[in-house]
């Protein structure tokens, strides 16, 4: 029975009955592990010796000159092993997989970051790994496909529907319905049926826990605003969570505005969507009047998703967090600016948060401190960026 798993009217479980047993098993395993000192110690040791935690904070002084004089601090999740925040979640879920006695993991991936992280965790812990990836994304993110294969994972291109992240999740769920007895679905974001939104948040909240202490040590106070990009929303929840009780700290999620929310070609689910059910959870969804999911559009494969985690829907509705859309062009301008002012190539996903910081900094003025989750590095995006900026390869 579901005893938890709702965020206001959002969340819950909308899944075939075949999966209920596995979700209940996972829920029980997660709650037990969260209270088990041995599990907590094992994960902490992995983070210290394998992930490279705690991740550092870098003050972006030259970048901040373009943001109205505000101070800008970057939480460097891009320096984690595998190059993004995604490793936090997969190491936790891989340990749970072993505890449940399962031998095989499946995962979906959009940009490839979660797929690479899943393949990495599987290699480390001796698990079989199959990654579902939209055919369109295997083309956009060919480098990450090769990385997953080098790590021993099988990558299955998904040719149904829009051939992107949404359809990769559909295919992963079909695999899970069929093979649930020996397979764990390592969902990569804070969406999906309960317990995923809660569990994935719990594995990422270390980002905000560290950053809150680091900001207090660095500046003697809490930041005025915390910013993160939002696709499914895992890196954003990870950094927001510790600051939710701090009512004076603004929490700002930057969604993918694509060509502009007004054009209909975007992936800004909260800004431009409406409440509905997708992939097992009730949240905001990009949908038409018949409840059919509408295809999303973004230059960033990792944000190109027509759903969003239910906790974000809730934080939006109660007014605790705000969500804005950043268009492709604004994100790419911020991408280039960070490269040239700080010597850091961010993921295009992350560039949406950076673009948001340029606006928010100007709105808040020169005395503001902004904390940004630099959720991933941009090595995987070099080809996309080169095409965008007309750099010959």
């Amino acid at each position, binding site marked *: *029975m*579901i005893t938890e798993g709702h965020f206001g009217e959002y969340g*819950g*479980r*909308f*899944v*075939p*009955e*075949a*999966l*209920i*047993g*596995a979700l209940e098993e996972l829920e029980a395993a997660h709650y037990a592990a969260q209270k088990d000192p041995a599990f907590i110690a094992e994960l902490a040791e992995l983070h210290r010796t394998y992930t490279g935690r705690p991740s550092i904070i870098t003050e972006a002084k030259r970048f901040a000159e373009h943001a109205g004089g505000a101070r800008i601090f970057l939480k460097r999740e891009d320096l984690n092993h595998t190059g993004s925040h995604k490793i936090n979640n997969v190491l936790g879920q891989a340990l749970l997989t072993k505890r449940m006695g399962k031998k095989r993991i499946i995962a979906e991936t959009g940009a490839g970051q979660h797929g690479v992280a899943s393949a990495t965790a599987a290699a480390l812990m001796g698990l079989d790994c199959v990654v579902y990836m939209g055919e369109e994304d295997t083309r956009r993110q060919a480098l990450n496909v090769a990385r997953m294969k080098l790590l021993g994972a099988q990558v299955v291109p998904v040719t*149904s*529907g829009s051939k992107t992240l*949404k359809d990769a999740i*559909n295919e992963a*769920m*079909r695999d899970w*319905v*069929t*093979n*649930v*007895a020996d397979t764990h679905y390592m969902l990569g974001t804070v969406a999906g049926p309960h317990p995923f939104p809660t569990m994935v948040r719990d594995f990422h909240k270390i980002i905000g826990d560290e950053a809150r202490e680091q900001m207090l040590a660095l500046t003697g106070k809490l930041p005025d605003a915390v910013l993160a990009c939002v696709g499914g929303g895992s890196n954003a929840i990870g950094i927001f969570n510790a600051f939710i009780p701090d009512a004076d700290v603004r929490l700002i999620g930057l969604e993918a505005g694509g060509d502009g929310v007004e054009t209909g070609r975007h992936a800004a689910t909260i800004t431009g969507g409406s409440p*509905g*059910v*997708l*992939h*097992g959870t*009730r949240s905001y*969804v990009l*949908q038409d*009047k*018949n*409840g*059919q*999911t509408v295809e999303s559009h973004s230059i960033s494969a990792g944000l190109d998703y027509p759903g969003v985690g239910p906790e974000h829907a809730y934080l939006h509705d109660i007014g605790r967090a705000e969500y804005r859309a950043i268009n492709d062009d604004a994100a790419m301008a911020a991408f280039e600016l960070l490269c040239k002012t700080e010597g850091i190539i961010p993921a295009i996903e992350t560039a949406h948060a950076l673009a948001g910081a340029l606006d928010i900094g100007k709105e808040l003025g020169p005395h503001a401190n902004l904390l940004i989750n630099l959720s991933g590095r941009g090595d995987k995006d070099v080809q996309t960026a080169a095409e965008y900026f007309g750099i010959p390869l």
Partner: protein
Amino acid sequence: MTQLDAVMAKVRAENRAALIAYIPAGFPSQDGCAKAIKVLADAGVDAIEIGFPYSDPVMDGPVIQEAADISLKGGTQAADVFAALKVASDTGVAAVVMTYWNPIARYGVEKFAQSIADNGGSGVITPDLTIEESDEWIAATKKSGINPIYVVAPSTKDERLKGVTAKTGGFVYAASMMGVTGTRSTVASSASELVARVRTVTDLPISVGLGVSTREQAKSLAAYADGVIVGSAFIKLLLDAPSEQAGLDAISNLAKELALGVREGR
């Protein structure tokens, strides 16, 4: 009492299983769907499930996904689903709708249930609606007098079977195996085990679906189940046929074979 309740009582009195066919609204076309429904009813089908196609059908294999794509590209909307439902119920068979939750929620839960009743429908099968999320739906189906039909799976534990079947009306939809829709060469032994477990918790009729495509399979299921559900096998015939008429002839022949199968199991 719905038409579906009456049909399930009738087949029980005849000591046989019901034959239940699935076809998505708007497939192979709006007009073709209406023709297919009439052909199936003429061939001896006892009940018809009209699919309301959905963009993200996680319980469906490639055959039904393809049919749903064709239907959605043809612009199928809720009104087309209700029209197909009316065609089916007008033939005298029991007619239900099968769809994922979001199209129902988007249309309006109470309005959807009432539209089912208004078009002669007996109930709705909701494969991704869990009983925990069902309060509004159960209230709406009661108000409109239709059957809420839930799916149970081989992995559903006994205690949960009690909870799910307590909310169910018409029949319990027993998934024969762990997996998505699509034809299989054999029906898994998990089907008979699941039906036996469901029998211990409810007196409702139990229909088995997933993977059924032949008279032999229908016969073996009819030995212990109250209904046999066939979907992908009909759709594959319509997809593969060189012409619409050839497709209709093919599903007619298969339905007649299956109708024999559900009568020879006991």
